[in-house]
């Protein structure tokens, strides 16, 4: 009987040598004449343990050393029993790290396409109602209620409508979109198909950042299988409904994650942000009503349609319903993916899951919510992970990236970097951002070099004020979050 062994094919696992491990296992098994079935699964998200080798244990079956369960010094026991994993609530990530990502059979055997099956029996309004009832809010950053967006597109008459999946995942410190696309691409395809049915769109695009070639491969392989098995294309599963799906690549512009810039890019133009209104839901891609949703938002739809909006809504706190896949990164001992209901505190996340800093030094600051998120100070670590609680602290939950820094970080340099990043990535459409960020970078240089420090700090605050109030989009509008939070919480790094 063949032994099933899992070595992740996730690109982060590969970055730590998973391909070499997989090769070594295959070679060794052949040498010892052991019949193995090697599955390149997604990652469980326990990145600090990658490359992780999992063996389907059928006690007493094997004699090869590493298959011997508890005897090897590196053996960890059942993955499900590792507290980091066991304490999570995996709804969106239910299959990631467990199935063969591009096996449709595996997907269906693990409750895949149940949501679509239900959706095909519902009216469009009923599908939208399930999503509205779930309380799902956009996981791409702005936390806008997904059901409301879909409803607008549903109620805007048009012969052609579009579903766009925003897979630009430009936020540093985040990788949950990548893990879904590499580790369970069918769940995204299913979510987009349901979105198409719900609003009456027959064409979908996944706008994928070019930095994710492994995700591109997995998505294209899965899309091909979905077409071959009538889960995409015309007359889906005999329903008479059509949905076509295509992956399009970005080209290394952070601003193209902003939804209107993204649509410009998909239309083949420079990624200049559009004025709103009109909303994309009314006039979006090629001027047609368009749903733009983040990967995680769309990948959460199948379980909502499978188990019902109420099931999903019962997780979470306040107006933050369901689960949030958090991504622990930077200077933490146990980096990785933690999907859990809203409501846990940041401190619990950093210490109970993250295990504290990797360096063993005190954690000084944590940037939550990507490069436009505020630096969170120790005194704020007890804030629950909840959109409103974070907003009340002038912090941002965003796409759920959590990057920890130990006490060797200089916060003035982080503020300078934030300005530099904004200058580098600005689309140039509005003056506060285009000129203000470059000016901000120069001002930060002077502050760091102790040139007219006090005057320059006044200038920095006034620049931030202009950016906050005068920018067309959140790139310019939120760069003050990291800058001012660094200045306000860590004045000593600015020479105070």
């Amino acid at each position, binding site marked *: 009987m063949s032994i099933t062994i899992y070595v992740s094919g996730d*690109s*982060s696992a*590969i*970055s*730590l040598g998973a391909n070499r491990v997989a090769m070594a296992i295959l070679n060794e098994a052949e040498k010892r004449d052991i019949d193995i079935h090697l599955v390149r699964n997604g990652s469980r998200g326990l*990145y*600090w343990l*990658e490359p992780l080798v999992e063996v389907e244990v059928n006690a007493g079956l094997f004699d090869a050393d590493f298959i011997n369960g508890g005897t090897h010094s590196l053996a960890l026991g059942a993955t499900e029993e590792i507290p980091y994993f066991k304490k999570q609530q995996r709804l969106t990530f239910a299959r990631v790290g467990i199935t063969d990502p591009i096996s449709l059979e595996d997907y269906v055997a693990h409750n895949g396409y149940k949501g679509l099956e239900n959706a095909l029996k519902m009216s469009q309004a009923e599908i939208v109602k399930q999503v509205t009832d779930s309380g799902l809010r956009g996981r791409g950053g702005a936390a806008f209620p997904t059901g409301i967006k879909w409803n607008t597109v549903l109620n805007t008459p048009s012969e052609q409508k579009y579903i766009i999946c925003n897979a630009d*995942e*430009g*936020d*540093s*410190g*985040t*990788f949950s*979109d*990548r893990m879904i696309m590499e580790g369970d691409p069918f769940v995204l395809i299913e979510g987009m198909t349901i979105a198409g049915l719900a609003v009456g769109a027959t064409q979908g695009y996944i706008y994928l950042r*070019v*930095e*994710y*070639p*492994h995700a591109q491969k997995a998505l294209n392989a899965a899309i091909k299988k979905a077409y071959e098995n009538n889960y995409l294309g015309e007359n889906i599963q005999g329903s008479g409904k059509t949905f076509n799906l295509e992956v*399009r*690549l*970005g*080209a*290394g*512009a*952070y601003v193209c994650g902003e939804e209107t810039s993204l649509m410009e*890019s*998909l*239309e*083949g*133009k*420079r*990624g200049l942000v559009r004025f709103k209104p009109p909303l994309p839901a009314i006039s979006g891609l*090629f001027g047609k009503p368009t749903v733009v949703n983040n990967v995680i938002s769309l990948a959460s739809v199948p379980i909502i349609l499978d188990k019902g909006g109420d099931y999903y809504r019962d997780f979470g706190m306040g107006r933050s319903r369901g689960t949030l896949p958090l*991504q*622990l*990164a*930077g*200077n933490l001992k146990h*980096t*990785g*993916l933690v999907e859990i209901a809203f409501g846990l505190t940041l401190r619990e996340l950093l210490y109970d899951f993250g295990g504290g800093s*990797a360096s063993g030094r005190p954690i000084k600051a944590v*940037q939550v919510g990507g*490069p436009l998120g505020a630096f969170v100070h120790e005194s704020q670590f007890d804030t629950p992970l909840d959109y409103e609680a974070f907003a009340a602290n002038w912090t941002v939950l965003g796409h759920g*990236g959590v*990057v*920890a*820094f*130990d006490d060797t*970080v200089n916060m003035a340099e*982080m503020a300078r*970097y934030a300005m530099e*990043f904004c200058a*580098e*990535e600005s689309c140039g459409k509005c003056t506060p951002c285009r000129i203000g960020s470059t000016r901000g970078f120069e001002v930060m240089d002077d502050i760091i070099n102790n040139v007219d420090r006090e005057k320059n700090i006044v200038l920095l605050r006034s620049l931030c004020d202009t950016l906050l109030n005068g920018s067309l989009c959140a790139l310019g509008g939120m760069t003050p979050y990291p800058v001012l939070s660094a200045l306000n919480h860590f004045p000593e790094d600015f020479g105070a």
Partner: protein
Amino acid sequence: MTQTNTPSKVIENIITALKNQPGALLPILHGIQDELGFIPSTAVPDIAKGLNLSRAEIHGVISFYHYFRDTPPGKHTIHICRAESCQAMGGKALESHVKAKLGIDYHETTGDGKFSLEPVYCLGNCACSPALQLDKEDVYGRVTPELFDAIINELGA
């Protein structure tokens, strides 16, 4: 790489194959860069003609996106992550080491044409910082200066 075709033939084929897609410009530019490693300036008039756009528009798009390049890259391209998570794990020291080792700065190519160096703002490998990408598909995590040296030595640096 299409061996038998000249670059201009390659470009023509790509334009013909893709120009009727909605929003064809980015797929065409990707197609050309995938085949040739960069987008030669000689391609611009052909693309403009194929898509019925002005040369200025094509040029504007190429220059807007960091990923597209109009000069040939070295044999290998190294993308170093400059973003926050990698900074928190020694990314800046790695960056200095790489620049010193190769003797080039960002957007440059070594004299022997072997390596080009580019910055990148996150590779989605933040749980394994600091990270870098070699050519298109090889991502490395927890990269130390020693590991970097080993990687490029293997490539015959």
